[in-house]
């Protein structure tokens, strides 16, 4: 009886620990070799045959096709530079420049990876649409209400993520965070 109870206990611990760790790893989207710059994180290796099992599992679970490294690199931001989760009811400003790339796009998704409905059907910007300052830097206002300049509607959703994709870029597996890879700063300007 004691043996049976003991084995059941050990197996229960194994199930909770094992499945719990798997669930945790997949919901956090963990993978090896992240490239973090400010609040932006990319996993360049996920777009290669060298993708680790965690990356493969999280891709299969989400159901997306990863951006292949020969195509580009996708940076995701779910918080501002102070680590607060991005809230669609707040006014958030992205300011700065991007690393060198032939084209880039920035897109706003909800946490499930769906586009967020808004009155002007704008879900993001491409590098060609952006209005820039004289020095080449730009500002994008991510706000629920219309804003002058580069306005990216947040649709007032509670949580969202921003994905900045660089296409045909030298940023890759061997890139280290530093001066060559500047990413736009993400700052909350005001919250109702």
């Amino acid at each position: 009886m004691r043996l049976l109870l003991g084995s059941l206990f050990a197996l229960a611990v194994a199930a909770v620990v094992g499945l719990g760790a798997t669930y945790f790893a997949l919901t956090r989207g963990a993978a090896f070799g992240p490239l973090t710059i400010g609040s932006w994180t990319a996993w360049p290796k996920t777009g290669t045959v060298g993708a680790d099992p965690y990356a493969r599992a999280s891709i299969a679970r989400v159901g997306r096709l990863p951006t292949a490294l020969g195509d580009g690199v996708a940076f995701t931001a779910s918080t501002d530079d102070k680590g607060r989760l991005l809230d669609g009811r707040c006014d958030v400003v992205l300011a700065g420049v991007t690393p060198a790339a032939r084209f880039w796009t920035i897109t706003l998704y909800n946490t499930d990876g769906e586009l967020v409905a808004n009155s002007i059907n704008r879900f993001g910007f491409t590098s060609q649409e952006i209005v820039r300052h004289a020095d080449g830097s730009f500002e994008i206002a991510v706000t629920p209400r219309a804003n002058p300049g580069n306005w990216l509607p947040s649709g007032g959703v509670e949580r969202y993520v921003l994905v900045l994709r660089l296409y045909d870029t030298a940023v890759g597996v061997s890139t280290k965070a530093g001066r060559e890879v500047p990413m736009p700063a993400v700052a909350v300007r005001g919250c109702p």
Partner: protein
Amino acid sequence: MIRWLLLALGGALLGGIVHLATIIILPRTATHDAYSRLAPDAPVNTVAAVPAPTPESAPMPFMDPAFASAVCRYDLSQGPLKLSVPVSLAYTSVSFYTRYDVAYYAINDRAAGRRVVELDLMTADQHNQMPEDEEITAADRLIVESPTLTGLIAIRALAPEPGLMPMAQSAVAAAKCVRAEDPKPSR
């Protein structure tokens, strides 16, 4: 007390094995991965347009709305595949994925350096079986080796402004993916 602690420790170790096993098995058992989502609307060895994502519906999560895209779901068991993708005005890329959504190769219009990206897709075995002289005549074609018999080719063209979307869509729609021996295109 010691006995239960030891059992908990043993359980935790076993849990580590359970964790690694589930992580490794998961891609092979996933029923909603990108390949399975696209498969019903993508016939084998044919280019099929992928509808643009909207807030209401999207073929896959985290699709870039600035791109027009199409996929060719391939099966190399009958022989190699020929792929040709006309280059659009802005940026065109062709990415290759295995059955389990691992990207193993990608090329863009600039790397291809022509008006049309032309590629031969085959397995390593088929590449080895290719006659020598044919390889010389095919020297100007790019040969891509697929690690698996089945997989996906994603063909994507950027619309730098929303008004250029029809241009990107027509570039993607003109892409062809056909069996190498098949004389008539499959679309």
